[in-house]
């Protein structure tokens, strides 16, 4: 077990598109604004610069009208395999957390993995509250699917 496993969450998906194209969808706000966020969410971008050290400053709008400030700083970009970033609410957010996206060719498809690593309990709590708030916004429209995950228990089995 690595030192960060206890503080990680991993979500992965196989997408039926070539790796270059999937990677491309993460590099341009024209693409990102089409799919970023859960069902019913939209984004308004204030600034966007896709390069190591560059930032994406934007606002996420929930289906009930709630807005969430967002800030991302790209820390590493390896085309078309890997993107590392810090993700918070305001520039240089002390509660920002690390996320690493990896893109792996799987035949004609691509496996994308999102791995979030929380540095401290406080940062994690911040994320908990935020994602709960996002979920709350969705619940008001009745979009919440019954979906219970079991990450830690599954990990225990592995």
């Amino acid at each position, binding site marked *: 077990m690595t030192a960060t496993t206890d503080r990680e969450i991993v*979500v992965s998906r196989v997408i039926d*598109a070539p790796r270059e194209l999937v990677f491309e*969808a993460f590099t341009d706000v024209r*693409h990102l604004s089409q799919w970023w966020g*859960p*069902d019913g969410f939209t984004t308004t971008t204030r600034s966007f610069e896709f390069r190591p050290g560059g930032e994406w400053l934007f606002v996420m709008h929930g289906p009930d009208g709630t807005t969430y400030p967002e800030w991302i700083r790209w820390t590493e970009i390896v085309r078309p395999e890997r993107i590392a970033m810090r993700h918070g609410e305001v520039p240089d957010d002390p509660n920002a957390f690390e996320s690493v996206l990896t893109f792996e060719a799987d035949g004609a498809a691509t496996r*994308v993995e*999102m791995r979030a690593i929380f540095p401290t309990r406080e940062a994690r709590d911040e994320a908990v509250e935020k994602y709960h708030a996002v979920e709350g916004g969705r619940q008001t429209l009745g979009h919440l699917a019954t979906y219970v*995950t079991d990450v830690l228990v599954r990990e*225990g089995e592995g």
Partner: protein
Amino acid sequence: MARAATTSDVFNAIAEPQRRDILTLLRDGERPVTELARELGLGQPSASKHLRVLREVGLVRDRKVGRQRLYGLDARGLRPVHEWTGGFERFWSESFDRLDAYLQELKQTQEDDR
């Protein structure tokens, strides 16, 4: 926010690998501390200490059967963990759904342009 004690915070409680091992063993059913200690290669006092922490955060409950005390899973305590991971997972799961749909459209457009 003040840091929560290990004994009151389920996330801190399960950050300890041996405590997660105990939870994994208990998924198969109730066990006495002696068995748990033996399976994990722990001393009984150390296994008891872990069980006490797990009980205090509501992950494990115990009951007396004859002269033995049996420990079992109390899954209600895992709920905050499920909710927490569920929120983040759901966010990305749905984003990936949308990404997939978007890329299928994009691929179609590219083919049409040819």
